[in-house]
């Protein structure tokens, strides 16, 4: 009798042997833990709640190679937005920071450098927020991370301009794992935007960011998931917020064969606020999955979620918003809204708001709608001379606009519009 071995994710990354993430005692230990996890964690399937609508086999049962370093790119040829920002290039995970005047108290460097120069701070965060033991994609990232960005804003420091991180992937059939750390210390204010592009596909891009927003600090993180047509993109953020802290995350997903976003927020101290906004437009056979978790542990915190999707052709959208309000979290205000439009009968949307509320003096609301474009509105626009296609586009834009408008900078809004209309 043949004993068939249960496949593990390790096999998909067999080519990575020898390319594991090593660096210091801590990093090594964490990597080893991740490798053990990859050995022991079962590959999720339809019966795994967190992956019910999102198949993972193409990635976790695929065959990925590490990228070969030193690939040259000509930036002008890439479809990258130009923002008035401090620019950082991540080419297949390797960090290249463009020369620019950073304000005092802003430390922006590669994770490798940070490990050296800011070891204590680095080690206080690394591997402590993202769970590489239980989450299989985080385990992949932890085991095989090539590089990433480290950003620290010292006390009361304000970033004058956003930091624009451009992720470039050059080689087909490679998996590139990027690991980042963002530390916004007490009273600081900062903004970081990520955009992506790949030259050849398919690729698996895996980005995990551990974020700590200190007391009375504010941080905004944008993810422009465009330019990822032929990729399987996983992106998770583990955010811990302190007292009076404000965190905003905007996720715009306009491309990608398979995209999964996992923002996890812990509101650790009073009076902190988090805003999670997302817009997604899957088409063809694309799949976009936004799984968020917000944990209210203490009183007087606020969370706001707005996710809007427009599903074209045979696209697939998935939304799962978990909000926990623990027994001590009195006077919590939690709002969650997910609205979706299906543009074709072949598309599908699975939306699941999950609120677990254990405190009694709270204000929590959630709404989820899925429907079609308003026929009357369409007709109205056509009567005013717009072609059906343009009318549809106009309504879709109006719908998605609510999320796009939340982007802080007009130039970013403009760029996102250009991507949507493409």
């Amino acid at each position, binding site marked *: 009798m043949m004993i068939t071995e249960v496949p593990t994710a390790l096999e998909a990354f067999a080519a990575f042997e020898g390319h594991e993430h090593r660096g210091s005692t801590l990093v090594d230990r964490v990597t080893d833990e991740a490798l053990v996890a990859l050995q022991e964690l079962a590959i999720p399937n339809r019966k795994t709640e967190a992956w019910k609508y999102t198949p993972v086999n193409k990635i976790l049962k695929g065959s990925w190679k590490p990228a070969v370093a030193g690939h040259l790119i000509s930036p002008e040829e890439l479809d990258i937005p130009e923002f008035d920002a401090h620019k950082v290039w991540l080419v297949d995970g390797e960090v290249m920071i463009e020369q620019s005047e950073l304000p005092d108290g802003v430390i922006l460097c590669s994770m490798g450098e940070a490990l050296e120069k800011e070891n204590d701070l680095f080690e206080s965060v690394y591997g402590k927020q993202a769970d590489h033991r239980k989450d299989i994609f985080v385990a992949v990232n932890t085991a095989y991370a090539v590089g990433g960005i480290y950003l620290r804003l010292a006390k009361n420091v304000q970033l004058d301009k956003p930091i624009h991180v451009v992720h470039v992937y050059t080689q087909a059939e490679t998996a590139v794992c990027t690991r980042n750390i963002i530390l916004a210390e*007490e*009273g600081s204010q900062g903004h970081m935007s990520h955009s992506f592009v790949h030259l050849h596909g398919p690729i698996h891009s895996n980005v995990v960011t551990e974020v700590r927003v200190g*007391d*009375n600090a504010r941080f905004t993180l944008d993810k422009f998931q465009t330019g990822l047509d032929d990729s399987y993109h996983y992106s998770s953020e583990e955010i811990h917020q302190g*007292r009076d802290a404000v965190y905003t995350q905007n996720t715009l997903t306009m491309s990608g064969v398979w995209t999964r976003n996992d923002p996890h927020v812990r509101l650790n101290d009073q*009076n*902190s*606020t988090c805003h999670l906004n997302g817009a997604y437009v899957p088409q063809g056979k694309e799949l976009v999955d936004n799984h968020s978790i917000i944990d209210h542990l203490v009183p007087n915190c606020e969370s706001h979620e707005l996710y809007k999707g427009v599903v074209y052709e045979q696209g697939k959208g998935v939304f799962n918003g978990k909000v926990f309000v623990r027994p001590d979290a009195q006077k919590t205000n939690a709002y969650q809204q997910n609205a979706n439009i299906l543009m074709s009968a072949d598309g599908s949307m699975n939306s699941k708001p999950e609120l677990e509320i254990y405190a009694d003096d709270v204000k929590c609301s959630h709404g989820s709608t899925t429907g079609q474009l308003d026929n009357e509105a369409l007709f109205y626009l056509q009567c005013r001379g717009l072609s059906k296609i343009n009318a549809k586009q106009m309504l879709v834009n109006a719908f998605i606009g609510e999320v796009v408008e939340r982007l802080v900078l007009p130039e970013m809004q403009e760029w996102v519009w250009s991507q949507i209309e493409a």
Partner: protein
Amino acid sequence: MIKIKNLHASVEGNEILKGLDLEVKAGEVHAIMGPNGSGKSTLASVLAGKEDYEISDGSVEYQGEDLLEMDADERAKEGLFLAFQYPVEIPGVSNVNFLKTALNEIRAHHGKDPLTAKEFLGKLKTCSELVELDGKLKDRSVNEGFSGGEKKRNDIFQMAMLEPTFAIMDETDSGLDIDALRIVAKGVNSMRSSDRSFLIITHYQRLLDHIKPDYVHVLSEGRIVKSGGPELALELEEKGYDWLKEGVTA
């Protein structure tokens, strides 16, 4: 203006203020800093007259009167104002209607006639410009749908409208971005005068760069353990609260 002597206050059986002494004279701006749990908010609530607290000892003299004998609304009518740490929402009651009611109640208490519509609107305009409050904010219900920063600015707006004699600001700066902070500071600074006093309770030194206090006090474990001029805040910023603890226990 206000003399607090040996104030002991507890809530649900726990003593929070353990013999607090403080004197604020007319025209002065005092800052109170302290670690979490030191009793900062308790002090603010007790002075404003929140009923949950039990005063077991001590006295508070306000403009020559016994403050502790007065009900909360009476204290307000006598010119005491509290900018709340967590301003509440009151849906259905517009900001304008709320303020008009409050303003006229206070005026009535002093034997003054209520403001005419024209006078009221004029005042509304001046004050909202002071705190750069968006015109639309005024048409909404009290704090309904306001962000944290907007709620705090609304409290400063109310303060400007009600013209108190003694204003207590309970962590007004917590969670504000730098722009909002500047607006709040501008509002407060423009209201400084020889017959008005401020008690600014803050967790972060940053606010005091914008609103320069005359005196800084450190509250720790229910008592004021150190007082000084504005330099004290900077010292605290550098050395943290533990430095003080060492000094205290010595």
